[in-house]
């Protein structure tokens, strides 16, 4: 079965990079998204991760988001999660982890917050 996951960099505005992920974000695909994000973004840049079309978020995906947030922060940037689907919000709220991540209702809202 082919992986129903895809990550694309859709936009770069100022020092903010927008990455859009679709499909299942699980143990198999989470490392790919992490790799993509770290490559698509210059060191120190802000990252907006649009998870509107993520259909499944496993514990590995949750872990990946936390690692990504810490990494961007430690390099002087930040991570904003834009328009997360119910499949994303569910596990994050279940684990009570949403307070460690910055979550916006839409991609625009994220970009506005970053001043880009």
């Amino acid at each position, binding site marked *: *079965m082919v992986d129903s996951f895809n990550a694309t960099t859709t936009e770069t505005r100022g020092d903010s990079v927008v990455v859009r992920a679709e499909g299942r974000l699980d143990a198999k695909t989470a490392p790919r998204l992490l790799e993509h994000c770290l490559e698509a973004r210059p060191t120190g840049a802000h990252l907006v991760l649009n998870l509107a079309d993520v259909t499944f978020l496993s514990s590995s995906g949750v872990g990946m988001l936390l690692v990504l947030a810490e990494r961007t922060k430690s390099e002087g940037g930040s991570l904003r999660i834009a328009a997360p689907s119910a499949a994303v919000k569910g596990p994050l709220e279940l684990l009570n982890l949403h307070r460690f991540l910055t979550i916006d209702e839409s991609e625009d809202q994220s970009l506005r917050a970053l001043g880009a």
Partner: protein
Amino acid sequence: MKPRRRAVISIRWVVTGVAVVLVAAAVLSVGAVSERNLRRTLSREIETRLVLEARNLALTSSGALLSEFPELTLVPLVKTMQAERPELAFVVVVDHLGRIQGHADPRHLGEAYTPPAGLVPTAASGLKGGERFLGSPSLLVVEAPVTYANGPPIGRAVVAMQRTYVERAVAAGRRSQFLFLAALLAVAVMLGLVLLGGLLKPVAALRAGLERIGRGDLDTPLAVNDRTELGLLADAVNDMTARLKIARVESLERERLSHELELARRIQQRLLPRGRRTASGYVLVGAHRAAAEVGGDYYDFIDLADGRIALAIADVSGKGLGGCLVTSMLSALVRALHTVHVSPAALLVDLERHLSATLEPGEFVTMFYGLLDPSRGRLTYASAGHTPLLLWRCASGRVEWHPTRGIPLGAVRGGVLAQTLEDHVLELEPGDLIAQFTDGVSEAFDPTGKEAFGFDRVDQVVRDHARRGPDELVAALSAAVAGWTEGEPQDDETLLVVARPARAASDEKETPRPRFDAALLLDDAEASGPPLVLPASLEGLSVLGPWLERAPHLGELRGEERRRLELALYEACANIAEHGLKLDAEQTFDLWWVPAASSGALDARIRAGYFLLRDHGFPFSPGRWQPRDLDDVGRRLQGRGFGLDLIHLSMEEVVYRPATPAGNLTVLTFDPAKVRQGSKEDRHG
């Protein structure tokens, strides 16, 4: 004890009685003597008076007798005398012719005087010439001659007295004497009683005090302040009480100590496994014979999650409570550390590190620790100064001894232990048997104290009995040592024998009693239909979603409940694939949804069913899951380990049954209502 009641005779009355009898005897004897004296004195006095009366009468009568009518003078004289002296029987004056010239009754005048019959002369003192003293049983009579101018007698004066008068006088004297003596006696008795009462007062205090001591009160001393011997007695009793008190305190202390030792012994006994155990066909037999003193022997078998068995045996050098304490610690530490260390040598080093603070200087522990892998017949072990491991080879019937270089725990501080310890590996062939024991066995001395049981005798007993199996061998070794010492063990004797089954087939299954009977659940699951066979790869798990869509009842779930169920199942499967099967794509594992045969609301139908996962990978049991603290950045940065949280937060119940004969089983139940409630709480919280 019930006090014996008995009649009490008071000392006071005894002494008083004796005194009364003595005084009375004295009084009576004194009375008898004084009466005799009194009688004699009175008699003499009365005699003398009688003589004087008669003499007086004679003097008075002399003139009258010479007169013409002597009766004119003599009759009134005699009458007056008799009237004045009623005790006189009669008074008569007789002339020289023997005719009565003076008489109280004038009719007798002129008659011849006839003295009363039976008069005989009686000796009397103070009689003058011519005077006679006569006596009869009833009368005393005195005759005095009447003379004139010292001439010849011209008559006689006769005075008679009743003898009863003397008796009456004596009786009167006796009565007054008796009254006096009786008064004396009464005074003596009173004085005696009062005096004795004072003297015996401390006896009552002594008695009350002794009764109090008898009841167990040793704290109140006898308050007897007395200068007699009773005071000394009270002092002696107080002294005794003080010593009794000390003795009682000591005895209580001894009792408490022996109780504590008994408690320690029981704790030690409870730490030891109960006798015999089987696992995968292996038979493990332990035997422990405790010495009179609480010893420091310890042994244990522990089942590991991966099917291996940890074997531990140790001997703490200290005895008594201290030794027991170390033994208890050892037991707890081994149970805690066996999951941490894969290497027996590392476990022993870690044990020493934990124990070093507890061990007294000079106190040490010899210990053997081994991990037995029943499936391969492999024993990995390390020994810290413990007696060599004995291995009996079934095929050859030979005994091998396996000594090590390890030094005891705590013997040399400063990390030397680690340099002397190493892991040794022994391969057990079918039927082979290993034995470990403490030096209570090899160093059990015969009654003369000269010869120890020794390794050679152990060797011999093993060669003689090993072929009959571990139970027989342990019994034979125990009996041989008991026979050697001929009595109570001098030191704890501990034996541990493990035998590999002669045939590889294991016919003795052992599973802990499950809350969910996993075997029965598996039977039901297999009966319910074929499982979803999942490959041990992460990509393969994406089939879970479509599978849920088709599963009875589950397909009806929507939204958050559906997503949550898929998430939890995904995490459970990912754990097995990743950790149990190491993502070995060749391997597969099974997932069943076993719906309950019930109708009704969707929630109830789903709640009544269960998911069953079966795999044959590395057994995995996370123990009791607890929510974790995620405020720790380090933990978040690890970015992993949320799987278990997601499973437990989403599923109603999760039960792990690792290493069952059918493989590792995981049972999960799901309650959609709980998800709805949880997400509501999340929103509001």
